[in-house]
């Protein structure tokens, strides 16, 4: 009986997710099923694993507090062929750079992005906003009150992240002159690090120039 009920719950949740199309907040599912959040989240996780493990044509995404069904990337080509749609354009290197800076330093300003990149990023930021990968989120309380930017839920979905915490770790360039922040935003004392890691010369980052 227990498993039977569990499967029913799973199917009901599948129905809700399918009907919505859009991301569904977990609380909404809890209220509809009159169930507590841990249980609902457990079922969602189970459903997610099922789609992936059975290699079904749909997948379940977990984005912050929301869950959303999407088509399985494995069948992207076939699906596109069926509807004669093109693969969305790949992000250019400048777009990727701007997006990375905003992802890691958000909320942040265009001036900050410009400063790190050494070039004007206005156009690229406009494009990223159009693609709904970044969005404005208030203004900085300094003269001129510049806009602040952050990444969106669409960004998390596009990069298959559940939250910003899933972003890859900031690489350690091995340089001893480098300052690093811990999770409290404090600078990590690099002295201890140098003793462990030894004195490697920082690699000169040579990356392909922008296309």
């Amino acid at each position, binding site marked *: 009986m227990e498993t039977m009920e569990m499967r029913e719950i799973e199917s009901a949740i599948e129905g809700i997710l399918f009907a919505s199309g859009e991301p569904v907040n977990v609380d909404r599912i809890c209220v509809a099923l009159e169930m507590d959040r841990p249980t609902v989240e457990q079922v969602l996780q189970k459903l997610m694993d099922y789609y992936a493990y059975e290699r079904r044509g749909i*997948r379940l995404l977990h984005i912050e507090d929301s869950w959303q069904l*999407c088509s399985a990337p494995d069948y992207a080509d076939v699906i596109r062929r069926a509807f004669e749609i093109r693969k969305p354009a790949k992000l250019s290197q400048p777009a990727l750079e701007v997006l990375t800076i905003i992802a890691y330093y958000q909320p942040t300003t265009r001036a900050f992005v410009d400063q790190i990149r050494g070039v004007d990023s206005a156009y690229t930021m406009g494009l990223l906003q159009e693609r709904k990968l970044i969005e404005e989120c208030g203004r900085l309380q300094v003269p001129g009150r510049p806009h602040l930017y952050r990444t969106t839920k669409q960004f998390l979905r*596009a990069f298959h992240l559940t939250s910003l915490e899933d972003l*890859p770790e900031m690489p350690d360039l091995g340089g001893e002159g*480098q300052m690093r922040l811990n999770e409290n935003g404090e600078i990590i*004392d690099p*002295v201890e690090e140098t003793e462990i890691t030894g*004195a490697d010369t920082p690699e000169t980052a040579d*990356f392909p120039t922008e296309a």
Partner: protein
Amino acid sequence: MENPVYKLEKVVRSRSEEMQDFEGPLDLILFLLGKNKMEIQDISISLICDQYITWLEQRQKMDLEVASEFVTMASHLVYIKTRMLLSIEDEEAQSEMDALIQSLEERRRNENYARIKALTVKLGPMGEFGRNIITRNPEPMERGKIYEYSQEKADLILAMAEIRNRAERTLPPPRTAFQEIAQYEPYPVESKAREIIRQLKEHGITRFRLLFRGNRSRSEVVATFLAVLELCRARVLHLAGSETDCTVRQDRELPDHLTLL
């Protein structure tokens, strides 16, 4: 006194000129600035020197080349700072300092940019996921008819307080609001009462109107009038005659404690 000459070119080294451990003094300054959470503008030479020595001791190896580079740089910084302190107009020192700050900031920025570029190499392929998934539109359905409210219990008390506040604003102000104003006696009734008694003792029966002679303020007139009333009530004074011609005489002695209204 001969001015020592240091060229900035010697201090600001590019990355290609590799040194042991640090790629030149700028890396070292950046490291020490970071350690001290300092801004480049606020470089404290002595503090940095101390930490530099400590650092060298920790490494247990003296690299004379690095050490001398550092000393050169540190002394040059001291020199620039001294000149700037002695004369604000020293444009040469200012521009040298600016150049140093700029190169330090550039170094720091380059490091950040290199890190970002390294991250794009990781993030780029991750973005492939988004290019290969398709989400669907919602099924047609009615939405949003049930409202889920979430309120605090205290909201009820606050709401009632607001209703009451509003009610109070439209009411005539309560008596208590006037207490301070009404009870304020610039001219005490009690002292006026004693004054009237004294006056009657000295001059005998008088006219009511005459009691007000010499009253200098409205408050004194009020005090006089109230004092007469109070004294009548206490049967100390007796008023006789008509509205226009009223006489005042003292009937009894002033009691020890005259209670006023």
